[in-house]
């Protein structure tokens, strides 16, 4: 801690006077409190907030919710919206997998859809994308997961466009009116740190159990990045373009439609990419509230240790994710095509026509050959059962069993449990002081006050112990991720080729829906604490490696050359030049790792944790909106404290080093 304080003082341009002293004093007080507690002399009310003092936040919130829901008639309104949404979802369900609803034309034959996707892939990015898109859909059909994959896609096809439209409109509003921007910003940061489980219960209550609730929760979760990217893009439109638009006499709407939006095309499409990826990740997670599809099947298979079958579903999800990601990214890069006047229709739209022809061809073919329309049960090539046995056999090999068993025992008994007990042994006020001191030393007074208020609320919420256990999982996993990830990243950054390869791996891994990371964890460690830590670790390591490599690779060459000339060894160069300069970027990676960890630790409740996530998951079984919300806010506030502190530090540091 003192190290950080010193560095913060030396390097931040204008350190506030006395910050270090105050931070020291706070740490000192915290240590003192803890020691008194160990000596057994601390009164109980200073160790933990007494239950009598815990305000009934959940009760109050419940009262507010039921007032809004029943007395103000919000439920009637949302139920009305549900009807419309359900109609859309039913129609898309009919088209994708043949649910018996209007318009009664589905399901699309798998061959036709695969062909259409391949054509889209070719249009966007040539043969490679065509192969990837077509291949993914053929794999899905052959492995016997077509119907569940289509159930997932049918919701995605509604949720993603909805999130896009709402996000775009709000983004435009925030760019146009400063007050909207001001009002939206804090809400967005809370929304982005709120655990996904918190979205689920209100969605079920207000929007009916099943796909409608899942679609609503997914849509809401995917909106924030769209808003951010839209505003970002619109703000960047250059004055010259705006002038040109004005001179040609555009009306306000025309300005938006023909000047601003096309100029912000790249950012908006990046937003679209994020919307699609988030939607996919979340649709899978809505299995927890009964959304059928890939997620539900994966949940059921993982729950019953059918690991081979889980693995196959995991592959499908990953393939879909990568395909959607690559295609939408290719769309970002692809410039709009312009044709000469009088180019015949068929020439301008040849790809569209080709797609249509293939689509119709395969649809007709499926009438003659039913196998081209639907692969029935028992006709697929799934090797799930064989894989199940293979994995079981592997885990039963003596040395594998010994290794995982040893890791489990060693990490649990020697590292994790003592660490958890240590964190739990710190008195609440001391813990809050430590966090505030950390924020003060790294970022400043404002962040320290946020830390005090946020953690103060967590203490008052009555869920302190569970919150600490959540925090313990996050810290333990991120620390382990750093121990493993940083050396990998530093090694990879030494050569251009390896850095590229590693970044590609990280990029790909980041497109995987979070749920996927649970599969290897459960495979290796079963339902144990280690599996929880392991899944968070892997998930959090990705941004850590990525930002570290980027940080190290973007160190200005002058700096490294200067180090070379002054005869530094490569170790000295790394330690004294590259890492300090890369630190702000690495901090961003750290921050993202922590955010990811907070996200994952809640989902990992599925494996069986004792933290806030477990309570959150438990609320999904009832109608305790108040409790659900309090728990979600606790997680969000803890995550926000770190987010605000670390991002402020990274920004300060970058400015001080003249990197921005």
């Amino acid at each position, binding site marked *: 801690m003192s190290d950080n304080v010193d560095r913060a003082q030396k390097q931040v341009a204008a350190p506030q006077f006395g910050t270090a002293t105050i931070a020291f004093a706070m740490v000192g007080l915290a240590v003192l409190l803890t020691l008194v507690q160990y000596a057994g002399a601390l009164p109980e009310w200073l160790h933990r907030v007494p239950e009598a003092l815990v305000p009934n936040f959940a009760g109050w919130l419940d009262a507010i919710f039921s007032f809004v829901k029943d007395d103000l008639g919000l439920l009637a309104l949302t139920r009305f919206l549900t009807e419309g949404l359900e109609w859309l979802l039913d129609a898309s369900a009919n088209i994708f997998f043949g649910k*018996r609803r209007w*318009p*009664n*034309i589905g399901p699309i034959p798998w061959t036709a859809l695969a062909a259409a996707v391949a054509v889209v892939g070719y249009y966007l990015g040539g043969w490679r994308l065509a192969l990837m898109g077509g291949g993914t859909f053929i794999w899905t059909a052959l492995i016997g997961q077509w119907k569940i994959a289509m159930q997932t896609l049918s919701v995605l096809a509604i949720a993603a466009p909805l999130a896009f439209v709402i996000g775009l409109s709000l983004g435009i509003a925030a760019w146009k009116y400063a007050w909207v921007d001001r009002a939206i910003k804090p809400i967005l940061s809370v929304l982005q740190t709120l655990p996904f489980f918190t979205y689920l219960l209100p969605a*079920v*209550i207000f929007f*009916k*159990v*099943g796909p409608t609730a899942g679609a609503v929760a997914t849509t809401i979760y995917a909106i924030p990045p769209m808003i951010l990217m839209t505003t970002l893009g619109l703000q960047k439109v250059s004055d010259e373009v705006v002038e040109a638009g004005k001179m040609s006499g555009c009306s306000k709407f025309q300005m938006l439609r023909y000047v601003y939006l096309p100029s912000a095309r790249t950012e908006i499409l990046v937003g679209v990419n994020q919307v699609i990826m988030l939607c996919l990740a979340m649709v899978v997670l809505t*299995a927890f*509230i*009964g*959304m*059928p599809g890939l997620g*539900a099947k994966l949940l*059921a298979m*993982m*729950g*019953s*240790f059918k690991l081979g079958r889980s693995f196959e579903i995991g592959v499908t999800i990953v393939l879909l994710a990568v395909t959607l990601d690559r295609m939408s990214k290719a769309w970002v890069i692809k410039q709009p095509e312009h044709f000469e006047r009088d180019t015949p229709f068929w020439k301008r739209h040849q790809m569209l026509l080709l797609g249509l022809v293939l689509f*119709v061809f395969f*649809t*007709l073919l499926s*009438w003659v050959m039913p196998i081209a329309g639907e692969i029935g*049960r028992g006709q697929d090539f799934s090797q799930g*059962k064989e894989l199940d046995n293979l994995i079981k056999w592997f885990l039963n090999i003596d040395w594998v069993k010994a290794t995982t068993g040893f890791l*489990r*025992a060693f990490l*649990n*008994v020697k590292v994790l*449990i003592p660490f958890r007990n240590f964190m739990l042994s710190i008195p609440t006020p001391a813990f809050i002081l430590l966090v505030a001191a950390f924020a003060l030393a790294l970022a400043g007074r404002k962040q320290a006050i946020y830390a005090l208020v946020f953690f103060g609320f967590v203490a008052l919420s009555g869920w302190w112990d569970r919150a600490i256990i959540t925090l313990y999982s996050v810290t333990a996993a991120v620390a382990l991720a750093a121990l493993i990830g940083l050396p990998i990243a530093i090694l990879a950054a030494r050569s251009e080729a390896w850095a590229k390869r590693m970044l590609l791996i990280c990029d790909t891994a980041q497109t995987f829906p979070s749920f996927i990371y649970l599969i290897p964890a459960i495979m290796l460690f079963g*339902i*144990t*604490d280690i599996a929880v830590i392991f899944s968070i670790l892997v998930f959090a390591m990705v941004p850590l490696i990525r930002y570290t490599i980027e940080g190290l690779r973007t160190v200005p060459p002058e700096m490294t050359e200067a180090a070379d000339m002054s005869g530094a060894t490569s170790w000295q160069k790394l330690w004294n030049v590259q890492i300090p300069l890369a630190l702000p970027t690495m901090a961003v990676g750290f921050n993202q790792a922590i955010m990811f960890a907070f996200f994952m630790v809640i989902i990992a*409740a*599925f*494996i*069986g944790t004792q933290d806030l996530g*477990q309570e959150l*998951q*438990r609320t*999904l*079984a*009832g*109608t305790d909106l108040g409790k659900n919300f309090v728990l979600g806010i606790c997680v969000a506030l803890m995550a926000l404290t770190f987010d605000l502190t670390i991002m402020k530090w990274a920004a300060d540091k970058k400015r001080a080093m003249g990197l921005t």
Partner: protein
Amino acid sequence: MIKMTKALTAGALALMSTTAFAADSSDPIVIPIHNWSSQIVMSNVVGQILEEKGNNVEYVTTDSQAVYESIRLGDVTMELEVWEGAFGASFRAALEKGGIVDVGDHNAVTREDWWYPMWTKDACPGLPSWEALNDCAAIFATAETGEKGRYLDGPVDWLKHGQERVAALDMDFVVVNAGSAAALWAEIGAAEADKRPVVVFNWTPNFAEAVWPGEFVEFPAWEDGCDKDPAVGPNPDALYDCGNPATGYLKKAAWDGMEAKWPDAYAVLEKISFTNPQIAQMAKLVDIDELEPEDAAAQWLEGNKDVWEAWIN
């Protein structure tokens, strides 16, 4: 394209016309699916019986506690397994609010509680008393639980109150929730190999009793109000200080609009009644024979025509 549309609409119309003559609405009857096998198979069995009769049926996966709220609102049409021990509280609460009706009992006796396979008794001879179990807590310890014993409870959403009971009776146990019912069977199976003592959540009727003979732990007997009134049960200051009912009911429940909307289907639902062995057999088809639920249901229907054909005629 157009051809396909036409053909398909024609098909859909043909399908609808067959049902149009029945008194039942052609809207789908929504049957909920939860996360244990007998319920999944039974729901598919009943769904296929109703489809046989010409009703439209849809399945929706829901939480097993929240489902009663969904039934009240008509989002879900029926629930085929209302276990007294697990869902009695949610069911009663929903009955009080209105919108849900009790469609009668299955011919089955249910019990859900802490349970151990027989070999556990060798290591802890005082069983099945809960005090004896508590005295041997140490033999149930794992790497994660330290000195305390581990009790593997059902998935969190079953709201088993294991945690509360451990606190109320001051037991030396840590409650760990399994991810699903299958995780419970995996644990018993793993323990069987080296006859390791385990105590897990289990219930009857279930296939498990045929595969692994075992007993329920005898907790202080259930008294009405044990989950509402701290004074009931041995610990005067705590709820959940009793075992679950030892002879619980297994009910069917339905949305109160069902009888008017699908009268025929409702009449069938009233007649439906499964017995302990039948329910255990349904679970076995999925848990042991690894059939997909729809196939398991089809197979069960095939083999038990005499049971269900009486219900629809």
